[in-house]
């Protein structure tokens, strides 16, 4: 089956392709070389393209994504704008003109990616001021960013005749199911959960992919070639969100950007997590479900959700089972998911803990991988007595993990600096982190202990 999509207002049909092909490779092979490869792992943003998407608030918008991590099959039915489609009728787009005027390009290699990110930001519904994250997923090695930041800060508003703005008045294209097969393999994109489960049962070796921000890194960097890819990105049941009386239920295939919009700050710990999790370009595709199922010890979603006592729903043709997140990870990059199961949702019990904090120790503040991530939550009596404590960490063991002895020790005691000092020796014994290029074992061990002290200072308003 051929796939079809719209690229810069022109229809594209692709008959036969390897399902491991990325949009970036496809564009460049077609001679559309404005979209660049800088890293092929979603870190630099030189390959950014934008597509028309309905966001969680119901607005139609241009959403920038990394083409290097976008499987061609995922593009089916989409309406995509690449750098070649931004200037219209021989006129530069306002963001392009501003980049020219302010000296926003030097070597020019990262520039198309920045322009696409700026373009998408220009049309962000309700934009009144710059979201600095709009360009934080793009790396520039020449300018030092100041002129590009000024372009972003001083953007005007699109006028009514702006063709892109007019486009956004209409709904995005619907995403039809995809059943693509070629000699090189299959790309399957069902629309319903039952369809997805049936496909998985029929092809148990298929690799499940949601946003692709991990799976495609492996394709690009480790040259994994999958014969079957099962994309969950448009499974209706997996993209639902509910904020109920006793729990929050987050569809596993919602992008982090969508989750962020749905939550609107109602879960402070996750609100702290989002900007540190990754760049906006990644969060527009990455999902919480995918982040948990990679079971990476350095994924930031897991410690945050562990601190919130989250559970996950695993669905198979035989039914649904609920597993506490703390029991999901069985080893390094291994989970309790059975081969015929799909992670469908993450639930967080309500009410939320009284104290919540997410810390990420990394070299770069934005768009980096954790040396140590810590997510803390406390339920407190009015007296300050600890009813429950969750001290969850990433980057300190083979899986994301909680310091259970320390948690148990804190229960029943008054939340205070003294309690922190008495808990720290237990934290010091909780894990045996390794040293690597992100940080030494000593540093990690010390952070495990010190971050609790930081929690005390931050949550008590800096009292010593």
């Amino acid at each position, binding site marked *: 089956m051929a796939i079809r999509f719209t690229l810069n207002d022109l229809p594209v049909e692709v008959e036969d392709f390897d399902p491991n092909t990325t949009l970036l490779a496809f564009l460049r092979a077609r001679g559309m070389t404005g979209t660049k490869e800088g890293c092929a792992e979603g870190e630099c943003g030189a390959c950014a393209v934008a597509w028309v998407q309905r966001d969680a608030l119901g607005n139609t918008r241009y959403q920038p994504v990394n083409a290097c991590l976008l499987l061609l099959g995922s593009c089916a039915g989409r309406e995509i704008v690449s750098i070649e489609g931004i200037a219209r009728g021989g006129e530069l787009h306002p963001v392009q003109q501003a980049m020219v005027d302010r000296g926003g390009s030097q*070597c*020019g290699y990262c520039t198309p990616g920045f322009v696409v990110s700026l373009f998408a930001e220009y049309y962000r519904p309700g934009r009144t001021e710059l979201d600095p994250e709009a360009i934080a997923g793009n790396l520039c090695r020449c300018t030092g960013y100041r002129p590009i930041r000024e372009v972003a800060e001083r953007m005007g508003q699109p006028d009514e005749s702006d063709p892109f703005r007019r486009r956004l008045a209409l709904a995005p294209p619907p995403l039809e199911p995809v059943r693509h097969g070629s000699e090189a393999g299959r790309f399957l994109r069902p629309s319903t959960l039952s369809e997805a489960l049936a496909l998985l049962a029929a092809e148990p070796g298929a690799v499940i992919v949601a946003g692709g921000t991990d799976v495609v890194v492996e394709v690009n*960097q480790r040259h994994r070639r999958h014969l079957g890819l099962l994309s969950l990105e448009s499974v209706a049941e997996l993209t639902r969100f509910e904020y109920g009386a006793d729990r929050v239920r987050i569809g596993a295939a919602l992008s982090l950007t969508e989750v962020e919009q749905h939550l609107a700050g109602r879960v402070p710990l996750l609100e702290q997590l989002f900007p540190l999790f990754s760049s906006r370009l990644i969060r527009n595709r990455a999902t919480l479900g995918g982040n948990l199922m990679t079971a990476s010890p350095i994924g930031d979603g897991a410690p945050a959700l562990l601190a919130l006592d989250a559970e996950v729903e695993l669905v198979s043709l035989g039914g649904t089972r609920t597993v506490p997140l703390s029991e999901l990870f069985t080893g390094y990059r291994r989970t309790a998911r059975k081969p015929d199961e799909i992670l469908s949702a993450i639930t967080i019990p309500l009410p939320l803990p009284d104290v919540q904090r997410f810390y990420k120790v990394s070299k*770069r503040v934005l768009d980096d991988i954790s040396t140590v991530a810590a997510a803390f939550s406390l339920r407190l009596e009015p007296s300050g007595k600890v009813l429950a404590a969750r001290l969850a960490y990433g980057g300190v063991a083979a899986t994301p993990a909680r310091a259970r002895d320390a948690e148990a020790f804190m229960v029943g005691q008054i939340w205070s600096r003294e309690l922190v000092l008495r808990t720290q020796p237990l934290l010091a014994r909780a894990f045996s982190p390794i040293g690597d290029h992100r940080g030494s074992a000593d540093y990690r061990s010390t952070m495990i202990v010190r971050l609790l002290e930081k929690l005390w200072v931050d949550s008590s308003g800096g009292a010593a």
Partner: protein
Amino acid sequence: MTSLGKPMAHESALAHVTGSALFTDDLCGRFPGLLHAHPVTAPHAHARVLALDASAALIVPGVLRVLTAADVPGQNQIGPARPDEPLFPTEVMFHGHAVAWVLAESEEAARLGAAAVRVEYQPLPAVLELEAAVGEGSFQTEPLRLSRGSAQAALARAPHRLAGELFVGGQEHFYLETQSAIAHLDEQGRVFVHSSTQHPSETQEVVARVLGAHRHDVTVQCLRMGGAFGGKEVQANAWAAVAALGARLTGRPTRVRLSRAHDTSMTGKRHPFLGRFEVGFDAQGTLLALRMQLFADGGWCLDLSEPILYRALFHADNAYRLPDVELEGRVVRTHKTSMTAFRGFGGPQGMLMIEEVVDRVARTLGLDPCAVRERNFYRDGDTTPYGQEVRDPERMPRIWRELTASSDYADRRQAIADHNLRTPHLKRGLALTPVKFGISFTTAFFNQAGALVLVYADGSVQVNHGGTEMGQGLHTKMLQVASHTLGVPPSSVRMMPTQTDKVPNTSATAASSGADLNGAAIKAACETLRSRLAEVAARELGAPADEVVFDDGRVFARGRPEPALSFSHVAHQAHLQRVPLFATGYYRTPGIHFDRATGTGKPFHYFAYGAAATEVEVDGFTGMYQIRRVDILHDVGDSLSPQVDQGQIEGGFIQGLGWLTLEELVWGADGRLATANASTYKLPGLGECPPIFNVALLERATEPDVVYGSKAVGEPPFMLAISAREALRDAVAAFGSGRPGVVELASPATPEAVFWAIERARGSTA
């Protein structure tokens, strides 16, 4: 009206923002039948290749040929300084060293073919750590020395002395465009190479050497580079040579493009350095004597390590007078990629070392490092340790005074002290550091350039020169020089891609010298043309030729702007009158020399100056930090193009900030680079750009004897970032007791390094 000295958008800005600017690998689609090359890389840091069997690769569908040493018609040797760099090695010298290349119909087939090549290795002992290599005596060169007076005697006399050492980490260039080349043949089998190279003439020479051809058989073109920073000065040659060899052997166009992981694991970086020093000083912090040893980790082969080390020694004074001094440097061999040129070319490491010394002196005495720095500035009549007179010594103190005032240094110093008293876990730091950077290639013969300017009979102009465009804005400046000199609007001038068949035997675009050298050559060519055209116009205007004015496309007699002729009319008339409308221009930097035997001379045409004040805030729990504010005052002479210069200053600062803070190269015990891509090697991002970032160009700074009074700008601002490192140290010190004493800080000052520095500072409190 001239554009010279006025802000002008990058010459390719329109192409950049629309994605139509072509980089080497963007040309792939223009070559039907293109072959793709993939390296066979060694999994050892040091090993002998015992056998190489390509038969399994040749049966991979799509694989056409496997290139090995036996296929080289010329020399299997690409070393730029000495023959120590075989293109196809029999001895693996670093993890990831390419021992063969596979050519195939697709990238995927080439990769699968490379995986199928069977290579038998005999692993050999490898030395990876710089300090261990020094201990083992693993050196690539004899020591290089600069000295004056007797450091030993002066140290003995000095009222105070201290000794120490500092390891300075390297830096990956991480140009966004990885190394790439495409080669194809003409009907006579001669080679044309599109290469992302800073030095097309050397790429041409190396390709000719490998093919066993004359240089006139090889043409190299560089359209533009997606960043280079020194990383494509000599290290672009290998990929061009492989592509050219592939094209020669198969008759088909051949492409080499390194993936990011290949690029970082196969190409050189900024040299890691180990410095050991002993300094004598008085109670006010005046430097009296310095003895310093610098060990540069050269990696596996010499490359440009020797001139890089010389430049480190030449900058071990930075802006400070060192009465009795003994500097010694040596290039160390380790089993890593060959370290190479990177913005500053050793200067940053030398300068960092003396700034480390000055800070330790100041903190030992309990003095403000800012004051100690100022006290030691060069004065009238001073000379450097290599005997060059410091021209304009008053410029540094002037910059210092102006920046101290404009950055509100004194008030902020107080505000920070107050802030730090109130916040036990969050400390701010502030530091001001100077830069004095020598301009010229220290290898004298490189300091020459040529240009070829063509005026067509319609008045439009093509400018060819030997410099390459890598984002630094060279073509923009050259366009401004040409349009100003010819008196035509910038739109009349077209900058041509750099190509070896236009200007021969060019120098690398490096050492910040691109605009100085090529600008002077273009100016000379344009002046030749202008005086010929003046003769033609003079007859028509009825004025003497030396009174003909060329201004923005209009040609008229001085003092008589009407009637004016158009430039195109004059060009057309000149052609009818058989006046040649093309000219070459040539420039060589006057008066530079250096004697290695005595370690003295005048290696630099002039010095570029600048200073930066940086404020940071550090979290005591984690060592994580933020840059709060940066103020820079920099001397670019009379700027040819202020927006370009500001871009160089800001970009250089942020790149230097990366080197000194986030960018940490880590090799595994097996010699594999563990930080080989953007997920593991962190460049500064938007979040590192200071929220307040004030950059000013020094006023009244005309530089005589340089094109239109300008100064070089590519490298000097990089070292302004040392102020960020010193600000971090200042904040670290604030976690301590406040008693005098050295505050040690590793480099790069990653959050972890800052954290341990804080722990040490706190420890000294107890």
